[in-house]
């Protein structure tokens, strides 16, 4: 996509960043950090959640988000992060309103629980309206509708994201012709274009890594562009490479450690030494496991970003720290 000269912050690269990941990996947190990073230098980004959890409001410490865009944070250099919680019934009503000018029928639909009906009987339709709303918020590049430099979506987890994004497939059996079918087609065009990129959040653990590998293959299979792998909660290793080798060979110098403890005025009983050495062996095993997972992730051939584990938990300050870590590693500068 060419740079857009009409917008001061306009630059090449994707504008729609879809963030997925296994549950518990910090998907919502990193989506928020990405939105902050993409709002740097006076730009505007929009962070969208689609699963009704109000996770964004919790992160930014603000009241629950309505079905409307709200500014939730300012970024470095006067940038702004806006947020939107997309509710599927509102999205469906909005769609019907725009296309069919519902009028009083809206009341009847609401009253009858008809919307619940439509979205439950054909769950695939939910996703058409959710992704449709996302594409609407994105707007056509360079048009008046494109009010944001970047749109970041806190998407469903890895197990469901391919289905969520593959709206064409979802409606294929249900509506062969008609407006919904056309809607799905145009959503698919945006999602498969260079405007879009899907990032996967993972940890250096076995299951999240496996799910990352699986989802990258799955997304590739349906022609959706995979962006970066975001490795979350990375701890800085305390042990050196030499320590790790010694630990691996179970050859830690007991006497040397005891001497160190004595020099620090700490107890040096056999039990204490056993306990500390056991903990070092555990830590070394973890590092070895992490190295293996890191190699597996690297073999995917996608750009990777590492985000530090924050001991004090995720608060607003932590979000800014994660955004800074993304920016420092070049996220959003040339398009990941």
């Amino acid at each position, binding site marked *: 996509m060419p740079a857009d000269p009409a917008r001061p912050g306009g630059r090449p690269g994707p504008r729609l960043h879809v963030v997925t990941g296994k549950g518990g990996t910090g998907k919502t947190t990193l989506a928020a950090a990405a939105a902050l990073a993409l709002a740097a230098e006076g730009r505007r980004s929009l962070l969208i959640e689609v699963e009704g959890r109000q996770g964004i409001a919790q992160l930014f410490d603000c009241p629950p988000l309505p079905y409307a865009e709200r500014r939730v944070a300012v970024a470095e250099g006067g940038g702004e992060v806006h947020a939107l919680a997309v509710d599927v019934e509102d999205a469906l009503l909005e769609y019907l309103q725009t296309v069919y000018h519902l009028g009083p029928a809206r009341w009847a639909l609401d009253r009858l629980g*008809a919307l619940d009906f439509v979205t439950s*009987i054909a769950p695939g339709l939910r996703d058409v309206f959710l992704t449709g709303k996302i594409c609407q918020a994105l707007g056509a590049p360079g048009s008046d509708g494109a009010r944001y430099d970047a749109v970041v979506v806190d998407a469903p987890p890895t197990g469901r994201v391919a289905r969520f994004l593959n709206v064409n497939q979802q409606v294929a059996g249900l509506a062969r012709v008609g407006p919904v079918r056309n809607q799905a087609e145009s959503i698919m065009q945006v999602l498969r274009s260079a405007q879009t990129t899907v990032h996967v959040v993972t940890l250096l653990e076995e299951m999240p890594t496996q799910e990352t590998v699986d989802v990258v293959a799955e997304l590739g299979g349906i022609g959706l562009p995979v962006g970066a792998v975001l490795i979350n909660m990375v701890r800085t290793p305390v042990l050196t490479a030499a320590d790790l080798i010694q630990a691996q060979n179970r050859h830690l110098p007991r006497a040397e450690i005891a001497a160190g403890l004595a020099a620090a005025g700490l107890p040096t009983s056999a039990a204490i030494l056993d306990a500390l050495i056991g903990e070092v062996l555990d830590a070394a095993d973890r590092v070895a496991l992490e190295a293996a997972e890191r190699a597996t992730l690297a073999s995917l051939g996608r750009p990777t970003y590492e985000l530090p584990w924050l001991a004090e938990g995720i608060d607003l300050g932590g979000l800014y720290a994660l955004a800074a870590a993304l920016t420092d590693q070049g996220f959003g500068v040339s398009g990941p």
Partner: protein
Amino acid sequence: MDALLADRGTRIIVCCGSGGVGKTTTAAALALRAAEQGRRVCVLTIDPARRLAQSMGLEHLDNTPRVVPDVDLAAGGLLEAMMLDMKRTFDETVETHAAPDQARAIFANPFYQSMSSSFTGTQEYMAMEKLGQLRAQADADGRWDLIIVDTPPSRSALDFLDAPQRLGSFLDGRTIKLFLAPARLGGRTYLRVFNAGVWAMSGIMNRVFGAQILTNVQSLIAALDTVFGGFRERAEQTYAHLQAPGTSFLVVATPEPDALREAAYFTQRLEQDRMALAGLVLNRVHTTDAPNLTVERSQIGAQDLEDLPEHALAARILRVHVERMHRIRRETHLTQHFAAGFPHVPIARAAAQATDIHDLDGLRTLGTSLAEG
């Protein structure tokens, strides 16, 4: 934990909790332990990690319990395991209750395809359905005396309890009845306004989705309705089974804020609905054998040694210990918070392992850890 497993009155154990806390592994470890202690166990897993599934002989997802190899059966036990195939369970339920041509019509309906393979409630409903089937089989032929179930990886732990009823009441509800037969209600004045709404909606749906859609939806609902004879009633029955004596719930969590928050919601809910909560299983708990070497002492020690090159290794080892102690302190704090809210709920802890579990030995270790923790 062993008392629960050994109690012959325990017929069903439901493991629930938020995603990623080790529900499946916990269910499998308890099933293995119970079987090796002489129970005849069937474990229903939802979405096991590939290597764990392989180690239990679950390479083929065929929706039928299979004997798990290499289990010690000296005590007279049995271990069978199965993985839930949501779509196939739905198909089988239809086949069981419908005439062949009726079943064919249902399978051919595009909405059936969409509904039976999606994740919004169907998986939970089918997990309940499968549990009901296994229970019926156990009652009929005595093949198993204990069924342990894992629950679907829901967004929230409560989905497992709510989704089936939601789906049931929805399929059985007023909207559907109106929607199915708007013409029949035409003469009744008080319904006229709803009726107008239904017609408006039908018109809109036709325009939005194409004319075929209404016919498809109507015929599917009508066919399923005859098959299940009232979804809501069925969902309520399954729910009642969960309240019956012999069914125990275990809430599974890790010592993390989100997981424990979900565990607290779930515990409250089970108490409200008078379901038997056997306890909280806390996975991946960190421990230390040097508890007296506190964070503060170790930190000062590490600082003292920092500038002494000959003690650099000892300094790093103390820092490893500091990290671990920090973690333990945080986990203890979170667990105490939960325990303060639910003082009567017993907690079984399983120590964190360096690697994930993918064989029976790993499951045995976890089982022992849970029994002792």
